[in-house]
């Protein structure tokens, strides 16, 4: 094979190249100077992210192209998710710039791992091949395993890392087994290559119903459902996430609950919506083929998962007394709402949901990080009693984020839920929408509980007004602006999403 046939196009992976170079640069400065200054490391990370964002913008343009022998695909689906990941890491770097010094943790490695994790996430959205999805997923996971245990002397942090590591690799094994089965199911001796993990080729083979083995396809899809279900923390595969989120350092929790979750959703949507569902249009007439069985079975499975996830997440969140743990259950519930969009087969609603959710959730965790103080000591709801009037700005910001998570109109949370429920309703999943709405009503209880504690309870003892770093204030302001912007003026983002291209739209145009 000649290099020319590999379709090498470095422009197509420019965002990933830039983030990797930023990470390696931080590493090298850290190694040369023995101890990197946190401002330098943060600045390199932020500049790298800005460069990656510019590269993403330069790729934008409604086209669908695959490169690197079909490993990488450039479509608006990828670019939209890439923007979400860049926003996540940008905000996380801002809110942890001061934190990492206050905690006396190694600075260079922290930002380096964040950038490597971001690279993995970018690759997950860009992947057009199950091998690439696996590599991106593992790059993200390995970096985040380390980040979870970053506070090395803290038993909670250690425990969180061990649990995340064991259950993370356990779920990876399931995902891999699913990939192996799907590779097997795609075998066709008359085609070249005879078997494939490439999603585009896979879709064509599925659509033509030329499969080696239908049961193998279903088994593979089921295994992948388990693997992705673990990664996005959907019930019944959610047990790891409260423990991991509670024990990990707060900015890392913010990163896990937004970045890795959004990345897993990106691959999940790419495989299930843009490949499996796209291969079997609802009115295709192939009623008893393996492909339509796949669509039916996985839609049902996703629906059950969505209902369980929303309900368990919200009900268990009510009884939590630790704010981080409560937000962990809340983030399980939010994965459930995003799954509603996936059941409807509408990745645009999922993407908008995740964009809103990451902005709001990082904002909330930023406030929690400041109030928790050094070593995450104050994270019980009792610690929030009466702090509302002692530190009005922070309490007001946290209230805004919590209300937005609950879905109050004029904020991002409301728009996001509206879109997801609307597309599920339009696709005919009425029961699911009703359960979703009931669940968001339940969620008001535990979000309001924190706000009530902050403003209407006797002040907690030993609360000192925290000193805010400028970078953290910048991150908070950006999160607040984002929450309001996506809630009040979502028009431009929605427009961009409406026009966004993916493999499905181009197939329809053809």
């Amino acid at each position, binding site marked *: 094979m000649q290099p020319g046939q590999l379709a090498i196009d470095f422009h197509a992976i420019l965002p990933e190249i830039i983030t990797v170079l930023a990470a390696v640069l931080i590493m090298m400065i850290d190694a040369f100077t023995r101890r990197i200054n946190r401002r330098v490391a943060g600045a390199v990370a932020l500049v790298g992210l800005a460069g990656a964002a510019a590269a993403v913008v330069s790729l934008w343009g409604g086209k669908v192209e695959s490169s690197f022998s079909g490993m990488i695909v450039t479509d608006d689906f990828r670019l939209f998710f890439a923007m979400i990941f860049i926003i996540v890491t940008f905000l996380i770097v801002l809110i942890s710039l001061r934190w990492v010094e206050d905690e006396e943790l190694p600075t260079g490695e922290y930002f380096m791992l964040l950038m490597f994790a971001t690279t993995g996430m970018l690759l997950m959205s860009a992947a057009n091949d199950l*091998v690439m999805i*696996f*590599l991106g997923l*593992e790059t993200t*996971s*390995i970096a985040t*395993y*380390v980040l979870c*245990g970053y506070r*090395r*002397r803290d*038993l*909670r942090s*250690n*425990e*969180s*890392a*061990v*649990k995340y*590591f*064991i259950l993370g*690799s*356990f779920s*990876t*094994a399931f995902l*891999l*087994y699913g*990939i*192996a*089965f799907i*590779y*097997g199911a795609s*075998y066709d*001796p008359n085609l070249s*290559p*005879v*078997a*494939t*993990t490439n999603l585009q080729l896979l879709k064509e083979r599925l659509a033509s119903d030329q499969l080696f083995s239908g049961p193998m396809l279903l088994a593979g899809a089921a295994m992948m459902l388990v693997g992705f279900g673990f990664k996005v923390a959907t019930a019944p595969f959610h047990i790891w996430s*409260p*423990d991991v989120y*509670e*024990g990990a350092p707060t900015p890392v929790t913010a990163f896990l609950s937004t970045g890795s979750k959004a990345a897993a959703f990106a691959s999940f949507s790419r495989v299930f919506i843009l490949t499996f569902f796209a291969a079997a249009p609802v009115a295709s007439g192939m009623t008893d083929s393996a492909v339509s069985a796949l669509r039916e079975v996985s839609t049902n499975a996703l629906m059950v998962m969505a209902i369980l996830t929303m309900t368990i997440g919200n009900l268990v969140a009510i009884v939590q007394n630790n704010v981080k743990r409560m937000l962990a259950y809340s983030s399980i519930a939010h994965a459930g709402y995003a799954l509603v969009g996936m059941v409807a087969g509408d990745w645009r609603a999922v993407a908008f949901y995740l964009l809103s959710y990451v902005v709001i959730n990082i904002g909330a965790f930023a406030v929690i990080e400041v109030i928790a103080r050094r070593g995450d000591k104050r994270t019980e709801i009792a610690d929030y009693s009466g702090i509302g009037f002692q530190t009005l700005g922070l309490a007001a910001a946290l209230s805004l984020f919590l209300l937005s998570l609950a879905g109050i109109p004029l904020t991002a949370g409301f728009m996001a839920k509206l879109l997801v429920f609307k597309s599920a309703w339009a696709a005919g999943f009425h029961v699911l929408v009703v359960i979703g709405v009931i669940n968001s009503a339940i969620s008001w209880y535990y979000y309001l509980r924190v706000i009530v504690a902050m403003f209407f309870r006797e002040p907690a003892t030993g609360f000192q007004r925290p000193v805010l770093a400028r970078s953290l204030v910048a991150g908070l302001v950006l999160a607040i602006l984002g929450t309001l912007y996506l809630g009040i003026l979502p028009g431009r983002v929605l427009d961009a999403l409406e026009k966004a291209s993916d493999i499905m739209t181009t197939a329809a145009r053809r």
Partner: protein
Amino acid sequence: MVPLSWYLGLSALLFTIGAMGVFIKRNTITIFLCIELMLNGVNLTLVALSGFFGDVSGQLFVFMVIAVAAAEAAVGLAIIISIFRNRESLNVDDADTLKL
């Protein structure tokens, strides 16, 4: 030749033994070894399919899995050592600081 289904059966068996081990075993290192067993079950499936189809891409995937598993093992051992230093125990039942 040995038929394909034998290989697939063996790898399914390996995967299941690994998965059961994760649930049954209480030592962190043993659990980790069970996960490696699951990964190797998958590798066997990929190699068997790849050999049966006469298509190398499955074997290349196995390379990737091996390399990633090594990186994961290095990170995992480091994490396990750090918890051992603080707690002096590898039993997962002792890791209950974060329970409800």
